[in-house]
């Protein structure tokens, strides 16, 4: 399966070509090249998946871990070396399929969405760069290669968030995203180095030396999780993701919903054997962080008015679900406490599809009304039937309604949570209910509810062009059927086949909660007048305002960075640097300068004066020798 290297190389070549020669091409040609390359990559990914899974299991009943390419890139010492290569195992193959599918959809969709934008070629170049980096991340053979590509996705995310570089908010958002994730990646890097130093290896599987490393392994894994939490927008490092919505909407769909933000989940899944074997407490802590994040983001999402912000918070919440599912694992065996691993990966898969669909749908809506605000929408179902139907499908999927894909994966997550502890199960069920509620608030706010008639009369919303609706239809179709994929046959914690069976009581409970939440949202938001919602907002105005401002987490960051770190630490350090360090060096320079000015006087250029000095010196020396020695 040596051709897998092309999955990385082709987008990279396309990036270089479009980046260097893009401005010479017509935008359509550049876009067509990028999309064609991506189509080839997608075909290659599907072929890889097909070949990999159809090759069958080995004697132990596992899918083999293949490394079609692996070269030592940087030998450090003895056994410790950094490799570059391609690793194929069930989850990386699954991720290849997810990334190439969503990326291809986004490439096609962008033809319509980005039409006529300045920098169309640059946009496609960055998309190629991102696809290459993300593919490299998932097929990494060791933690360090993963880290390299991890930073590359960070860079491409930064470039794409700041795509509209003339807009101050976009620049601020891209900087924020980059700095926050970089800050978290520092933890990741330290974790990698600690792990590499004590366990003596960068590979994902536990080595013989891992056990000897003792307490350092949980520490290293905890630090790595900080990096994952930054990328996956876990509380309190989530602040960059809502702002990242300043980028073009297809970018939000690709990077900030479907692929890059789940890199943290993927990281934990990758390190799962280490987590479960050496640091189960750390794993459970990630579950608590994930659960809190899911709850926080769901509450905030209930009151946001910018549709992309709602989707951003719902993404944070859903990633929280995946982290929780991984965190509640207590063993490797999916039958006894290891179900969460499979559930998490399954949810990652389904979520990527329906969340990309939601974002692309939101993009179509924004394309039609030229605004992100819900107040400019309402009643759009008449104008955009295709978008309406596909959006509804995605909403039903995320709410967890049978037979859409979200139901199956969420059900597995909830089952795993209930088997961990009933409290966790109930909390997650409640958050699932909240999810259904805010998604349908969004849905009704866009397609039903109060219509902004003046605005729509002035500029009638229209259905998106075919290049935009086609990806919506494809993703909607995938969302409808993805739940029936026997996912456990491919991916499970111990690698053995696992047959997914729906737990009746959990499924009934979650369905009931979802239906009740949807009914509530319908009652509150579907009609033209929304007295209940308005009254509730007025009654709990404090809570409403706090949630609308995301519980002031950004302000807390602002306060900590500006008032505490900048004012109390950075300013004194800057003063010390300016006045003490620089001052000392300036003093040296001034003293040297002054001394040379003094000495310069002796260099008069007059030969006769030199001669006098010379004679005087010779005489002095003579006297010295005669009378002293």
């Amino acid at each position, binding site marked *: 399966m040596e051709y897998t290297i092309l999955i990385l190389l082709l987008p990279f070549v396309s990036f270089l070509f479009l980046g260097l020669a893009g401005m010479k091409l017509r935008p359509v040609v550049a876009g067509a090249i990028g999309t064609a390359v991506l189509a080839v990559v997608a075909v290659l990914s599907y072929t890889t998946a097909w070949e990999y899974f159809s090759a069958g299991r080995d004697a132990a009943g596992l899918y083999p871990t293949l490394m079609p390419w692996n070269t030592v890139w940087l030998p450090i010492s003895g056994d410790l070396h950094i490799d570059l290569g391609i690793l194929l195992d069930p989850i990386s193959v699954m991720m290849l399929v997810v990334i190439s599918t969503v990326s291809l959809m986004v490439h096609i969709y962008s033809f319509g969405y980005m039409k006529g934008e300045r920098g169309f070629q640059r946009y496609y170049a960055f998309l190629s760069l991102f696809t290459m980096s993300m593919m490299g991340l998932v097929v990494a053979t060791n933690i360090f290669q993963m880290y390299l590509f991890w930073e590359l996705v960070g860079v491409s995310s930064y470039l794409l968030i700041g795509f509209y570089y003339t807009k101050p908010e976009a620049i601020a958002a891209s900087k924020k995203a980059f700095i926050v994730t970089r800050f978290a990646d520092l933890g990741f890097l330290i974790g990698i180095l600690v792990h590499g130093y004590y366990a003596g290896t960068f590979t994902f599987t536990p080595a013989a030396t891992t056990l000897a490393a003792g307490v350092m392994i949980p520490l290293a894994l905890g630090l790595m999780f900080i990096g994952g939490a930054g990328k996956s927008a876990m509380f309190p490092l989530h602040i960059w993701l809502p702002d990242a919505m300043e980028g073009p909407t297809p970018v939000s769909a690709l990077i900030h919903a479907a692929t890059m933000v789940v890199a943290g989940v993927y990281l934990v899944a990758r390190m799962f054997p280490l987590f479960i074997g050496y640091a189960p407490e750390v794993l459970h802590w990630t579950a608590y962080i994930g659960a809190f994040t899911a709850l926080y983001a769901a509450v905030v999402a209930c009151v946001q008015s910018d549709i992309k912000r709602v989707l951003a918070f719902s993404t944070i919440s859903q990633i929280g679900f995946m982290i929780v599912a991984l965190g509640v694992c207590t063993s490797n065996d999916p039958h006894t406490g290891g179900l969460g691993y499979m559930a998490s990966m399954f949810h990652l898969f389904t979520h990527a599809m329906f969340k990309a669909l939601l974002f692309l749908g939101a993009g179509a809506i924004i394309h039609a009304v030229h605004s992100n605000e819900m107040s400019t929408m309402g009643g759009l179902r008449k104008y955009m039937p295709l978008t309406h139907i596909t959006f509804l499908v995605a909403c039903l999927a995320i709410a967890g309604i049978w037979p859409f894909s979200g139901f199956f994966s969420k059900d597995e997550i909830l089952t795993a949570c209930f088997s961990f502890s009933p409290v966790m199960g109930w909390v997650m069920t409640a958050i699932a209910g909240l999810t259904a509620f805010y998604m349908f608030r969004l849905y009704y706010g866009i397609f039903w509810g109060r219509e902004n008639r003046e605005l729509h009369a002035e500029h009638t919303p229209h259905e998106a062009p075919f290049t935009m609706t086609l990806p919506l239809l494809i993703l909607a179709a995938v969302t409808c059927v993805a739940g029936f994929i026997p996912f456990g046959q491919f991916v499970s914690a111990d690698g053995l086949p696992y047959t997914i069976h729906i737990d009746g009581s959990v499924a009934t409970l979650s369905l009931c909660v979802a239906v009740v939440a949807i009914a509530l949202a319908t009652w509150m938001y579907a009609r033209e007048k929304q007295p209940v919602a308005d009254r509730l907002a007025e009654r709990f105005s404090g809570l409403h305002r706090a949630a609308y401002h995301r519980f002031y987490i950004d302000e807390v960051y602002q306060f900590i960075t500006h008032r505490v770190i900048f004012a109390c630490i950075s300013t004194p350090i800057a003063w010390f640097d300016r006045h003490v360090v620089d001052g000392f060096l300036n003093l040296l320079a001034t003293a040297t300068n002054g001394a040379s000015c003094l000495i*310069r006087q002796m*260099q*008069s*250029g*007059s*030969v*006769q004066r030199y*001669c*006098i000095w010379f*004679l005087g010196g010779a005489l002095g020396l003579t006297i010295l020798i005669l009378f002293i020695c």
Partner: protein
Amino acid sequence: MIKMEYYLVVSTILMFVGIYGFVTRRNLLAMLISVELILNSVDINFVVFNRFLFPEQLEGFFFTLFAIGVSAAETAVAIAIIINIYRNIRNIEVKNLREMKW
């Protein structure tokens, strides 16, 4: 018989006349002549020491001959430089030579 000290007195006088001239003259040619005076005083010393202290050897005489030859060549070079200076700045006053001061 003239004593050695008399020769040395003459050469010392010559030497300090040369130094005095080198320091006080402003004209490059005069300075050059003064340098020649210093050289001559040294030559006299060589000859005198050879003649009075080591009469059976000839190193001092030959060294003097060498010094005269070398100083003749050196003078030629110096004169050439002075002529060039004259061509450039139209005089040979040493105080006017500021081009290569620092």
